């Protein structure tokens, strides 16, 4: 703020000083022009810090990422242009397909749980006449925890030897599992903890949407003899379509960037759970430090996610 103040006061005095200058209509126009320039300078003084942060840490990295994906750079000598080499190297990596398939599997499973469960929960909670505050509080509590806390806590729950889950399962006579340490259950384990820690947000948003449905619609449907299920199908769903679509897109974009669950629970080298983000991390931040390959993979991820993001932005801006 201290940087801005002197500059803006200077602009003000410059503007008014000229307006007082003697002369005909020509100088009045000049005075208006100067005043305009002064106003713009002031406005950009307020914008300067924001512009700088965006330029340095958002716009520049975007361009740099694209350039980097066509370069080989060891950060000692000058970077070399390598054309599509990084892309072909990424595509030739046997882990490429693994990472994308794992990511799709995670996203699919996460939607299966994370999309349906919050909606059903919200639908039921919205009918409660008691303790609504408690339900809202409880479901959102895990969202408040640092994600690493949730993941490490569940790591203890999953422990095949002394974990809570296997104790409960064997207690009621069900088969136990090695959870995140078993190839078969690893991905499911990641999805479970991810859903537990994130579904509160969607539930709260669905509750907001449900509360906004006009009561007349249900009243009219009931008078027409619609059963509860018919009311859900013909009143609730159409009314909630927009918010469900928005949350679906948001969830796809978020889950495709999954990182912390595989990073902590199954490790970055486990072929069962290597996701796109884990692979980017491996390229850039483990032994090889191949930033070019990491950048190429990032560009591919960006193209896929960008499509969903653009769709989301179009939907929400149209709604404004």
């Amino acid at each position: 703020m201290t940087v801005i103040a002197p500059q803006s006061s200077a602009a003000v005095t410059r503007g008014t000083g000229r307006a007082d200058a003697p002369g005909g209509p020509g100088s009045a126009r000049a005075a208006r022009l100067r005043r305009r320039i002064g106003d713009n300078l002031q406005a950009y003084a307020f914008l300067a810090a924001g512009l700088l942060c965006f330029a340095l840490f958002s716009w520049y990295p975007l361009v740099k990422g694209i350039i980097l994906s066509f370069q080989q750079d060891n950060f000692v000598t000058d970077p070399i242009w390598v054309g599509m080499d990084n892309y072909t190297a990424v595509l030739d990596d046997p882990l490429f397909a693994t990472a994308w398939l794992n990511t799709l599997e995670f996203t699919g499973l996460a939607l299966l749980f994370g999309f349906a469960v919050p909606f059903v929960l919200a639908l039921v909670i919205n009918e409660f006449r008691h303790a609504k505050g408690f339900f809202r509080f409880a479901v959102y509590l895990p969202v408040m925890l640092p994600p690493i806390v949730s993941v490490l806590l569940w790591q203890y729950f999953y422990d095949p030897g002394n974990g809570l889950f296997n104790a409960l399962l064997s207690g009621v006579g069900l088969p136990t599992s090695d959870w995140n340490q078993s190839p078969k259950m690893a991905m499911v384990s990641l999805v479970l903890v991810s859903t537990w820690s994130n579904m509160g947000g969607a539930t709260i948003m669905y509750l907001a949407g449900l509360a906004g449905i006009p009561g007349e619609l249900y009243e009219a449907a009931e008078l027409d003899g619609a059963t509860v299920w018919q009311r859900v199908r013909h009143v609730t769903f159409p009314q909630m379509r927009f918010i469900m679509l928005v949350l679906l897109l948001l969830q796809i974009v978020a889950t495709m960037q999954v990182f912390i669950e595989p990073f902590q629970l199954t490790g970055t080298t486990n072929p069962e759970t290597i996701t796109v983000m884990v692979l980017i991390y491996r390229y850039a931040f483990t032994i090889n430090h191949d930033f070019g390959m990491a950048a190429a993979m990032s560009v591919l991820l960006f193209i896929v996610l960008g499509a969903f993001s653009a769709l989301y932005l179009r939907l929400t801006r149209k709604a404004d």
Partner: protein
Amino acid sequence: MSSLTRSLISDADLRRGRGRLIYRLVLGAMAVAFVLAFIFPLYWMVTGAMKTPIELAQPSPTLWPTEWHPETYLEAWRRLEIGRYLANTAFYALGGWLIQLIVDVAAAYALSKLRPILGNVVLGGMLASLMLPAAALLVPAYLTVAEVPIFGGNLLNTPWALWLPGAANAFNIYVLKRFFDQIPNDLLDSAGIDGAGRLRLLWHIILPLSRPVLAVVSIFAIIGSWKDFLWPLLVLQEAESQTISVALSRLASTGRVTNNEMFAGLAIASIPMVVIFMVFQRSILNGLSAGALKG
């Protein structure tokens, strides 16, 4: 819209014989399920810290510690240096919040009320960044922070590596600008005649009117930086500079931390967020709901 407030099932249906019984059963079952699913894990974490490592290693977990060792919290605080990481995290969160607020409020004010030429282009450029998934920028953003263009310098392992990229928050600017847009210009013009400078208009008229939106932006900024993991993991590699999340992840992988101390660390890392949630529950949940309705 009339004042008819009802939902899917009418009050009358829920009060009648069978409906009432079903309602009670569903309500009770959901309450139990929610306590087990969302509250019990936290109980497990807090009491797990007070069990001995031997008790924790037993194949059959105990619901209630056989021996209570609350001193584990102190040991974890001392031995794992939890205090240092907690202080780091709080410092990063508060500093980041302050910088975000100053930078984004100034930018939103300029775009909403001062409306310079090319203002819409700037806003468009900022909003376009919302389309960029954080993941896609990770590597180039890391390299940028390691060597800042034009200005030079390496921000790795310094708070600025979190604060400056955090200030480029298009969502904040968008929310603030939309709120400022609703403040009538007449209000500013009448004050402007008295010769109040732009900065004073912002400080004395806009900001006092914007308290609700500033509160929501602030709470979410602090929660966001407390929960952040991947970016701090990359830019804070020196142990002394790490946030509690990154430090816990590193400590968990060393295998030199006993289970009860780890539980204590997890609980301590969660307490500030749980307290914030209890105090600001209404703002947080309503802010989220408002976001959902506006998209």
